[in-house]
């Protein structure tokens, strides 16, 4: 067995050009990710009440789509990504990736996905090549093709081959993040989970990564779930955006519709910042009220 992917699939252009998606009603496409009533709680310490990190989330993401998840710190974005990457089990609900259940068909799901996390998690003393070769082998990829692919992807991200033999710890944070992106792409995932891939990058690197994500969407058969704290990035890249607050998806639509919504319903300027503020904007009082009502619920 080699890479989990049929090479035909990788090069097939997406049928829908960017931007058109929200204008025309589209034909039903294959579902890349289907989550139904997903809930996840964490218990920290013995006595404390569990934290509901994800609360009854349902999602449907189509093949070829870039789906953005926006939310405040601690709202559950990374937890959601981890649930889809088989790193956490679901407390309740189901999640399927291309029809495969993340818990029952774990191996099949793992072969289809990859994830970029906010921290570039590598063996820091190993070189990018050594790290990538290791990762590729775990996905059953032959070393030689892993090497040429890695060089190609990293060149595209502005990292020259010369840098790939030295320990990764000698690279800047942004360069490490690009290597992390290369690692995820190397295995040709058909669902790519990107958890704040551009956090900590300088403006130029950020743009490079964003352009690369666009290129992926346009030339590869990749479906992407992306979390970010950068509103411009979300607007530029995402076909649809879900806003998560306290573990719940509170609103979900195309960036244009979301902006129109805050303009019409709240009389605000139609910007993504205002969308974010409106749907995650809890005042301190709200927070306290919620705690109180939850306490009552418990009794």
């Amino acid at each position, binding site marked *: *067995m080699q890479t*989990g992917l049929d090479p035909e699939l990788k090069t097939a252009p997406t049928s829908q050009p960017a931007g058109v998606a929200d204008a025309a009603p589209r034909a039903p496409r294959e579902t890349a990710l289907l989550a139904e009533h997903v809930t996840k709680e*964490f*218990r920290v310490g013995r006595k404390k009440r569990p934290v509901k990190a994800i609360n009854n989330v349902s999602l449907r993401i189509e093949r070829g789509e870039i789906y953005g998840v926006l939310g405040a710190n601690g709202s559950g974005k*990374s*937890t959601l990504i*981890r649930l889809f*990457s*088989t*790193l*956490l*089990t679901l407390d309740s609900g189901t999640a399927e990736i291309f029809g495969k259940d993340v818990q029952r068909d774990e*191996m099949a799901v*793992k*072969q289809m*996905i*990859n*994830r970029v*996390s*906010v*921290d570039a*998690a*590598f*063996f*820091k*003393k*190993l070189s990018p090549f*050594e790290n990538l*070769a*290791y*990762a590729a*082998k*775990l*996905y*059953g990829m032959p070393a030689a093709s892993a090497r040429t692919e890695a060089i190609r992807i990293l060149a595209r991200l502005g990292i020259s081959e010369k840098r790939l033999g030295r*320990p990764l710890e000698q690279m800047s944070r942004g360069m490490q993040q690009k290597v992390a992106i290369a*690692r995820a792409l190397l295995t040709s995932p058909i669902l790519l989970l990107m*958890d*704040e891939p551009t956090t900590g990058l300088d403006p130029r690197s950020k743009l490079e990564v964003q352009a690369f994500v666009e290129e992926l969407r346009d030339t590869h058969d990749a479906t992407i779930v992306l979390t970010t704290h950068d509103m411009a990035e979300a607007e530029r890249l995402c076909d649809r955006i879900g806003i998560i607050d306290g573990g719940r998806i509170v609103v979900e639509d195309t960036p244009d519709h979301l902006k129109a919504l805050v303009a019409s319903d709240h009389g605000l300027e139609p910007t993504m910042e205002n969308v974010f503020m409106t749907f995650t904007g809890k005042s301190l009082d709200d927070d306290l009220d919620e705690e109180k009502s939850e306490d009552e619920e418990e009794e």
Partner: protein
Amino acid sequence: MAMLTRDLRASMAFVERNFNLTKRYWGWEVAWLIYSVAGALSVTLIGHSLGDEQLLLVLVIGTIFWSYLAIVFEFIGESVQWERWEGTLEYTFMAPIRRHAQLLGAALYAVIFGMIHTLFVLAVLVAFFELDLSQANFATAIAFTLLGTVSFIGIGIAASILPLMYVERGAQMVFVLQSVLLLVSGVYYSVEILPGWMQFLSQFSPATYVLDGVRAGLIEGASVGDLLDDVWPLLIMALVFIPAGLWAFGRAERYAKRTGKLKRVG
């Protein structure tokens, strides 16, 4: 068949990765090797200073075999912890590989590394002392090394669960377990001199039987057939610990995924 080659390739990925890590941390490896040699020499010099040939052999065998078994145990037992420290644990657990392939890779590298490291220490000891191996039955020593390897792979796998389940304390528990094994297995002395409760514990350490068997083989020239009392506990431990360890590892992984213990940051 395809599954098997796939698993083997995954195992080799771990071997290669660990080899690269050893290469990149070579300064530490050298330092550690020197420490091992110094430790082995200081202990065996006790036997030498007493002019007791027999004691000298007992100590040499103890240091050499413990050094090897401890490496096998430690490398496997701490494999999860290393990835926690490096921050790669989630990536390894997200990859489409089966756990037995991962653990086999860790075990394979542990054995290779342990052998090389220990042979080096042995070479120094041999150069230092005139060891009387006229009676030695090397076949016995090899047989017990193999048996000991398999059973130590088993307890290594069982121990590696601890860092998976306990983010903070797991590695410390593995370390304590290793220390207890050292204490009760009769590495530098006969277990018979231990208090009763320690002797009780010593029955559960495969090292007890390995050292006993190797000593009987190398000092008295006993054959494996003479040492069945040491062979069968090792066989049973190997047969029990490896499958039980793999099973428990799977359970621990599910526990970690339920409680969010794989996570590092983000």
